[in-house]
């Protein structure tokens, strides 16, 4: 967002904030009423996969198979990270029947950074922000029709995301 000479943008944002504020008041009540029905289930967290230290092992444990590079996986990552603590990363794909997207940061202590389940009706695209300890290859993995496809990009990091 730039500055507010763009009055419409400003107004939209202010409204959004007011809206978010209103919701915040509701949330506790709503939470106590509805929590059991839709609480995120920790049991589905793949602990073993998040412990792996290489691309091959992470893919093997998480998916049980290996992957091939594809130009239908689009990985948007900065060439030079402004700060390794917060690196915006986006993945999108034109592949059919995508069921999941995973992000691997190869030089991090643990390779698998995040994984997303994409049910039918949800677009095969996600944006998030990741930590990177040092200059590293980032691999986006897209699961399409049961097969894995990847795109890889190097991100230069000189201010690491794992320092003090």
């Amino acid at each position, binding site marked *: *967002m730039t*500055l*507010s*000479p763009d009055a419409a943008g400003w107004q939209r944002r202010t409204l959004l904030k007011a809206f978010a504020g209103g919701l915040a008041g509701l949330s506790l009540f709503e939470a106590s009423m509805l929590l059991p029905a839709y609480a995120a289930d920790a049991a589905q967290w793949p602990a073993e996969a998040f412990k792996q230290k290489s691309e091959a092992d992470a893919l093997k444990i998480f998916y049980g198979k290996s992957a091939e590079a594809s130009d239908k996986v689009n990985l948007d990552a900065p060439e030079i990270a402004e700060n390794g*603590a*917060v690196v915006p990363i986006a993945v999108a794909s034109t592949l059919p029947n995508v069921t999941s997207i995973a992000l691997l940061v190869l030089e991090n202590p643990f390779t698998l950074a995040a994984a997303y389940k994409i049910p039918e009706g949800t677009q095969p695209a996600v944006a998030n*922000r990741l930590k990177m300890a040092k200059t590293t290859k980032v691999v986006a993995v897209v699961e399409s029709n049961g097969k894995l496809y990847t795109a890889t990009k190097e991100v*230069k*990091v000189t*201010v690491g995301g794992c320092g003090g």
Partner: protein
Amino acid sequence: MLRKLLLVGALALGAAHSALAADKVDPKAEFKAFRDYFVGRFPKVPLDDFVNGPYSMDAGLRKQWKAIEEFPPYDFAVDKGKEMFAKPFANGKTYGDCFPDKGVGIRQNYPYFDAKSGQVITLELALNQCREANGEKPLDYVKDDMAALTAYMAFTSRGKRFDIKISDDPRALAAYRKGEEYFYTRRGQLNFSCASCHVQSAGNHIRTEVLAPALGIMAAMPIYRSEWGSMGTISRRLVTCNSQVRAAPLKPQDELYRDVEYFLTYMGNGLPVSGPGARP
């Protein structure tokens, strides 16, 4: 004894020097020269864009910033500040009661020179003065609650243009001059001044960081820095600037810090408030 003599001598020297300098202070001319310098050096940067600091100078950084601004991490601070503003003190008064327009949309007028107390009043100082006047304990100046309050106040002032006044009061001129002196004085073992980084080296890279230009540098405050993983106030920024050049920082809101804020914000007059900001 010798030490005392040296000290007195040095202080006298300093005093004589600023008195001498104060005679020829011309803030208006200096303001014009300051702005012309940056506009001349970065002809492709639109004037109002200087308030976006390093992001006005580097396309790669700007793209990451835009992504972060889609849902900026300072949102939490703005909301917290808003809540704090709404919540009365024990005596029933609120922060709003201490400020013109209930504290909404006034960031661009700070800091100002207060003729009554003869000193520069920054927004951070005014907030703690407000608390103390209402029987509350002052807040830590560098982060958390103070950052939340100033984030909210800046947010309600976005787009308003800075309008810092240096009156003809010789004390205001002296404060301006002291701030200017602080800005240009080299210090710390690295022998850097504020200007070494933010004037002479503005736009250059230190590792992957791009040094922000001094023009408009106060407009984005307070900031969420990824490096800190949290919000920081102007006080925090000045303290870290000092320690980065290995100079022992002054106390937050030390008179000199307030003077340098006065000088620098005046140099950015006419530029829009962009705070709270997100920075690497």
